[in-house]
């Protein structure tokens, strides 16, 4: 066996995405939730690149390029939000940040 079926890459991407979802649902630390979101974005990137390789087209790779730009902006703003929340409340545990809870 000298060839890898391309669906193996899709299976890896699906597993990584599910692990990221588990991280967002289970963890309480806002930083680690943000890291799990990054993991999900990367799983989607892997899917894009797999299909770009399947169709021999570069458009999928360019979408990954744009996703990376969006992810960089998202992380910068998200971490700034986390820092200012930590300054105000002294914690980053999301179940202790309940100011809007009725």
């Amino acid at each position, binding site marked *: *066996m*000298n*060839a*890898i*079926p*391309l*669906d*193996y*890459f*899709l*299976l*890896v991407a*699906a597993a*990584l995405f*599910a*692990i990221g*979802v*588990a*991280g967002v*649902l*289970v963890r309480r*630390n806002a*930083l*680690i939730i*943000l*890291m799990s979101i*990054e*993991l999900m974005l*990367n799983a989607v990137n*892997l899917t894009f*690149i797999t299909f*770009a*390789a*399947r169709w021999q*087209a*570069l*458009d999928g*790779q*360019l979408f*990954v*390029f*744009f996703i*990376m*730009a*969006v*992810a*960089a*902006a998202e992380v*910068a*703003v998200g*971490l*700034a939000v*986390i*820092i*200012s929340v*930590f*300054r*105000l409340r002294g914690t980053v*545990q999301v*179940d202790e940040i309940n100011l809007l809870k009725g």
Partner: protein
Amino acid sequence: MIPILFFLFAGLAIAAALLMVTHKNPVYCAIFLIITFFALAGLYFLLGAQFLSVVQVIVYAGAIMVLFVFVIMLLNLSEEARLPAGRSYQTGFGIAFAAILAVQLLVMVAAGTRLIGSLTGEAPASGTVEKLGATLFSTYLYPFEVASVLLLTGIVGAIILGSKKLPKEQ
């Protein structure tokens, strides 16, 4: 050679991702996420996306994770406290829903993609800087400009949100 590299990178990515989600200390979580990003860069390389593989290492494993590590250092986070007993059902539900999603995704991919072919020894359509740049600056010129505006907005927003002046809490 390709199968060995694939299973190495895929196993490394999934194992490090699992450790990232389960580890208590945020610093170790960040390090495991960096390992995942490196393994994904290897997978991108196998799929013929050379430029994106390098960008993955520079942007994700470099810039973004440095931001994370700096914030962990700034916040001086200790290890995550044990959850109170009354909240453990949330963890159970979270794991259950993630497992349902995982089964759905894996079955869907396994059932639907028998016909998409294999990656043989030759690297497919190579994503070199030259080819990507030619497409980026012709077909995708407007999205490129919009992305630059988005990054500028992100910089300004991060500076505003992270600056010391905050409205006083009453």
